[in-house]
């Protein structure tokens, strides 16, 4: 085959993949803006007429989605702060300070990455219950302040890999000037590690934002619900109100998509970084 037709075939193949990928989004948006009467006709119509913007206002006020949004944001911010801070402190210790047993300890911690969450689920739940912390944000945020705990160790690994690429002469120069390890961490290593920190921030944020099982287990009263939990309960009440359901779903999806477009470069870099680890 010659060059021209082959290029054409390539773009046709990509298009054939892109259409089914985008179709659910189109379906989501058109359903979110449609009146029920128009939704239940065959063959299906694609352009809402009229545009039913009130689906959004009604869906988002029948349940306090504003409140869910704030709850989710609080949990996300507190856990992201904890994850970034404690993971980078640990990564600094595992990469730039020499102490006996360091590498053994690090290898041990890394085994936590492979652990299925189901194994620790029940005892962890019982522990929080005994502590009287059910229906608070503690079970959802405190583990982040211990380097993410469990699977979060992966962040320590990523940051450590990045820290190892920074020249050690910088630390030594600072130590000669009488700096403490904390000072070296905070004023030398951290400022040079912005890309890695942004990547960890993004993935920790998305992880907590999208979490369902955690809030499902630990949050009980409706006023404490996160967006995921709120949407699930909304779904179980408005089973057949597709306009409302799609409007609410679109509202839950939109912030993450917006974040993605703002920070696109780091997203792709981040996934790439995680894939290259082996």
């Amino acid at each position: 085959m010659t060059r021209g037709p082959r290029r054409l075939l390539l773009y046709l193949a990509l298009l054939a993949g892109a259409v089914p990928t985008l179709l659910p989004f189109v379906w989501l948006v058109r359903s979110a803006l449609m009146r029920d009467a128009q939704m239940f006709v065959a063959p299906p119509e694609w352009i809402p007429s009229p545009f039913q913007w009130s689906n959004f206002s009604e869906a988002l006020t029948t349940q306090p989605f504003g409140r869910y949004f704030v709850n989710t944001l609080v949990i996300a911010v507190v856990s992201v702060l904890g994850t970034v801070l404690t993971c980078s402190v640990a990564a600094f210790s595992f990469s730039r300070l020499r102490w006996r047993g360091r590498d053994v300890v690090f290898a041990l911690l890394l085994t936590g990455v492979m652990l299925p969450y189901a194994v620790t689920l029940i005892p962890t739940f019982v522990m929080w219950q005994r502590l009287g912390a059910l229906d608070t944000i503690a079970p959802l945020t405190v583990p982040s302040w211990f380097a993410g705990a469990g699977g979060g160790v992966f962040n320590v690994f990523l940051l450590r890999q990045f820290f190892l690429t920074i020249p050690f002469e910088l630390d030594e120069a600072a130590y000669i000037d009488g700096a403490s390890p904390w000072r070296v961490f905070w004023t030398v290593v951290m400022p040079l590690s912005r890309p890695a920190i942004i990547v960890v921030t993004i993935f920790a944020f998305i992880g907590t934002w999208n979490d369902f099982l955690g809030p499902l287990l630990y949050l009980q009263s409706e006023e404490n619900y996160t967006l995921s939990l709120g949407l699930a309960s909304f779904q179980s009440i408005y089973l057949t109100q597709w306009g409302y359901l799609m409007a609410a779903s679109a509202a839950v999806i939109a912030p993450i998509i917006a974040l993605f477009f703002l920070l696109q470069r780091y997203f792709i870099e981040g996934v790439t970084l995680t894939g290259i680890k082996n």
Partner: protein
Amino acid sequence: MRRLETRWGILMALPAILGFLIFTIGPMAASAFFSLTDWRIGAAPVYVGLGNYTAMAGDELFWKSLTTTTYYTLGSVPLVLIVSFAVAVLLNQRVRGLSVWRTIFYLPTLVPAIANVVLWIWIFNPDFGLLNSLLRQGGLPTSQWIYAESTAVPSLIIMSTWAFGNTMVIFLAGLQGVPRHLYEAVSIDGGGPLRRFWHVTLPMMTPTIFYNLVVGVVGTFQVFNQAYVMTEGGPNHATLFYVYYLFRKAFNESEMGYASALAWTLFMIIMVVTFLLFRNARRWVYYEMAGAR
């Protein structure tokens, strides 16, 4: 300096070490102990030895959940690998507007799990959902999707394929790391695109394929949300996934001891499967710098 370094080193690693002890090792040991007891929340655990494990052997729903989950894994993992690999190979052909295409294929990955589930309930709707509407328009037979026993798991497999973005981006990064001179060598020997793919791309990509395979298997073995929100394990236990069954035992039926035994069994299954995958990997995964590390 040396002692100072040790002191700071341990101090700074302390949160991570404590976290590992409190949230990983502690709960793991506790769950191993619970799995040997008959225990309902509120009552004291009663030691029953391996009773829970022998009970599992005779528990039809345990076997059902295991086969259902295996079915899902065997369907979803290869499909996601093939689709994401194919798209990554296409995107690696120096296409114009690469970032736009990449964004399109990555978008579904960003949809929060629950929004994803709600959206797909509507897509699968037998009367006015997207899939049956299209099939009807094309004059094709429609399906009951997640609402019939035989099509429920295949439907969820199709749904899982939608979000192949992470796997694709990892493949794409791998493809961009394949050295150019290898392709040129094949071309000089008169090899066409198919040859280049078969003798260079595929072997050079085996480590990346292997990584995505392991991550995919471990992930799909723990599928939960779809069963919880979409199907409640039905119809007729057709989507009774393992972790969903475990969750029901623990938090609906309050059988904490039995659920812990389920959890440890899952842990062991995943360990064995990963071990087998790694052992088998030596036969087909190509590592260029085997002795480098």
